[in-house]
């Protein structure tokens, strides 16, 4: 087992070219905080990109930031905060969730296509990458996209890297779109709604012109775990919507939203921030010990039915909803879930609702035996395979991370 730590992109290309020549599969990582995401790999060498770090170019009025791929997220976020800007897709901190401790990096966030509660309005990492430099599985340095927010020159290969988990290229330098940070944030909270009523209300809220920037529903068990007293104190379900923007606008929209939805309790800025951080981080709101954890993206309105169907077969399952129902987290007791981690039950429940389910936490054995990512129809799987071949013909970049053959 050798760990290669290239000092720059040229050295990284050198390592990958040598690995390609010798058909030596490489695990690509930097902070390693999301190493447990995806299928366990059997690589004997790894490429640790941690030294490719540092912000290269940041010009706030241009709304773009370019950084080496392993630049710590904390560094980027604090730099943006100093300039009253942010990454609008609200990349969540999954270290608690993954039980990892290292440094979360920009490259990892992009490779895993993360998105937080604002996904419902602002999109995911894929919607905010403008361009990148990387190294493909042939050891060639290449780039796509650019540094400006509007660009249709060539295929959009930047999006393709998002959610590819490092199986197509090592990212070495990334340009992302940044946006102004809202001046004020507040949330509107409703108690005691059933899952069905909560998701219906979420749809209603998102369909008002009040620019709701996040919509979540916490069943009682999840709400009880929140650090926010107003959320945890009543042992009841909590449905919550977020409003952000200039102060006079938020005050006015909050009043309109309350009128349109028939009430609700406002949650002030600090509590609001803490709650949405918890929702993005997932772990604080779910039972953690010896559980399998699933991340489901169903058609939003169908989410409560999916949850119900899983619960009927696996009574230990509990979870919560984000993205107005478009994201459903389910935590299942590992013993009850059995050898497949509950895959069959979860994916059967999802069948009618369409969408996809990813097994985020389970033992290595379970994640090796069941498809971690939703299985694709055969023609689409074959196309994915051909795409992989076009970037990494020898299959040396994170092989098997997404599927047995990818």
């Amino acid at each position, binding site marked *: 087992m050798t760990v290669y730590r290239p000092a720059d992109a040229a050295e990284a290309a050198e390592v990958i*070219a040598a690995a390609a020549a010798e058909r030596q599969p490489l695990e690509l990582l930097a902070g390693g905080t999301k190493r447990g995401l995806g299928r366990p790999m059997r690589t004997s060498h790894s490429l640790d990109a941690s030294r490719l770090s540092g912000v290269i170019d940041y010009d706030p009025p241009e709304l773009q930031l370019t950084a080496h791929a392993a630049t710590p997220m904390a560094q980027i976020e604090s730099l943006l905060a100093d300039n009253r800007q942010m990454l609008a897709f609200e990349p969540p901190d999954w270290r608690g969730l993954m039980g990892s401790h290292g440094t979360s990096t920009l490259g990892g966030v992009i490779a895993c296509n993360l998105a937080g509660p604002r996904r419902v309005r602002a999109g995911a990492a894929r919607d905010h990458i403008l361009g990148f430099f990387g190294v493909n599985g042939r050891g060639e340095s*290449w780039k796509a996209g650019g540094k*400006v927010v509007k660009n249709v020159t060539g295929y959009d290969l930047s999006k393709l890297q998002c959610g590819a988990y490092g199986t197509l290229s090592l990212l070495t330098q990334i340009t992302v779109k940044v946006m102004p940070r809202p001046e004020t944030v507040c949330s509107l909270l409703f108690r005691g709604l059933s899952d069905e009523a909560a998701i*219906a209300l979420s749809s209603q809220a998102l369909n008002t012109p*009040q620019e709701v920037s996040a919509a979540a529903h916490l069943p009682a068990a999840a709400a009880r775990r929140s650090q926010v007293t107003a959320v945890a104190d009543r042992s009841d379900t909590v449905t919550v919507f977020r409003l952000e923007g200039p102060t006079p*606008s938020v005050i006015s929209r909050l009043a309109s939203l309350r009128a349109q939805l028939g009430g609700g309790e406002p949650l002030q800025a600090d509590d609001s921030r803490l709650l949405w951080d918890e929702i993005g981080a997932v772990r604080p709101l779910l039972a953690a010990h010896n559980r399998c954890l699933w991340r489901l993206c169903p058609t939003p309105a169908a989410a409560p039915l999916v949850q119900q169907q899983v619960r009927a077969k696996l009574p230990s399952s509990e979870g919560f909803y984000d993205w107005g129902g478009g994201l459903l987290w389910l935590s299942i007791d590992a013993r009850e879930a059995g050898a497949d981690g509950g895959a069959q039950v979860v994916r059967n429940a999802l069948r009618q609702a369409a969408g996809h389910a990813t097994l985020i936490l389970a033992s290595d054995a379970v994640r090796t035996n069941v498809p971690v990512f939703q299985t694709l129809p055969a023609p689409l799987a074959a196309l994915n395979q051909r795409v992989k071949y076009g970037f990494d013909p020898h299959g040396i970049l994170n092989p098997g991370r997404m599927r047995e053959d990818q």
Partner: protein
Amino acid sequence: MLKMPLPDTAVLACRAEIVHALRQIVPGEGVIDDASELCAYESDGLTAYRTPPMVAVLPETTEQVVQVMRYCHSAGIKVVPRGAGTSLSGGALPLEDGVLLGMGKFKQVLEIDYVNRCAVVQPGVTNLAISHAVQERGFYYAPDPSSQIACTIGGNVGENSGGVHCLKYGLTTNNVIGLEMVTIDGEVLRLGGKHFDASGYDLLGVMVGSEGMLGVVTEVTVRILPKPPGARAVLIGFSTIEGAGDCVADIIATGIIPGGMEMMDKPATAAAEAFVHAGYPLDAEAVLIVELDGCEAEVDHLILAVEKIAGRHGASSTRVSQSDDERLLLWAGRKAAFPAVGRISPDYYCMDGTIPRKRIGEVLSRMRQMQDQYGLRVANVFHAGDGNLHPLILYDANQPGELDRAEAFGADILRLCVQVGGVLTGEHGVGVEKRDLMGTMFTEIDLNQQQRLKCAFDPQGLLNPGKMFPTLHRCAELGRVHVHAGQVRFPDLPRF
């Protein structure tokens, strides 16, 4: 003028047979082989290039598209998909030996799902028709290219179309959540859907903006949004381009993302004013239109902020719309800028580069120098919010050599955009027009990697060939693996 791939004489020799076979798939008037009728399809919005297709096919069902693709694939016949034909980069330019696949009969809005905030439509539905279909419930579809009355959503997917509102609301790619497509070998694939993201690689992300080279789109699921409750526009005149540019940067640095922010230079303003009489300040070197949308409290708050910022940057005049009619009037000139320029010049050539906003003053002054060099005038409209520049080069096609000069001038402008850190095209696409300039932005390795994606979808290169790439490689050639491990640049690096 650009060269297209030489037609395959063997295919041309079989034309009658091909037409007959296509008629077995698409009956009646859905197959067009009459020379005079084919003229209607000989070009798109890039009218300098014209080639009638070998045959045009207008299918009505996905199954017919599947059959046409299977037939063309097995017979080795090229296919050029086409929506409304409004592309400004020649994306739908036919091939002499190719089938033109017109998707205009796919005109149905299939489903409006307000609960899940989306609409499912066929690709031939126009951009504006989607907004019309959902307006009774106060919704709209956000991307609004200026051709929105005519251009289709299928074409928007192909070109990743933008519009004046895309800084705040995103391009087509950020507003399309699902596709049904047919591959060149006749497989029907579904990418995305009503849910967020999808399993596997983001093929939806690469399909949008792929210029009809990866597959034929047969169904589109788009995000629909509730309309903002209100909007007001501010018209600001500046005595210098730099003042206008600094004002734009300051508005954004202050944390304001306007619904739209457009700039016109003096020649464009003059043409627009003569056309619509909106009351634009004719003495200004640059005119800025800033639209703020949202609830009344927000719009009022931001209008004040923008007025203050404009004052700081030496605005020579400021006018805030007091009614929706006035707001639309302020926009009318900008929206009609292209036809307005068409009135002051026999022909114009519309360019589409993007630059870092802070370079706008420098780019416009370099362009002024180039005007003298080429002996042609330029009017500029600029999506100032996102740095997307549309220089309109005025020329007269009847004057020998003027078209060639306009093209050379345009190419120089795009090279300049790349030089200052921008890109060749912000929203019109590469197509035929910018194909041979791709090398100014990308290395051969970059372009080969792009073509390897194409190979994954279309290994024989039958879908819309001759577009986007300056040099066409065979997929077998690109698949060859050259190992460079012998050239060791970092001898100290540990070896495997």
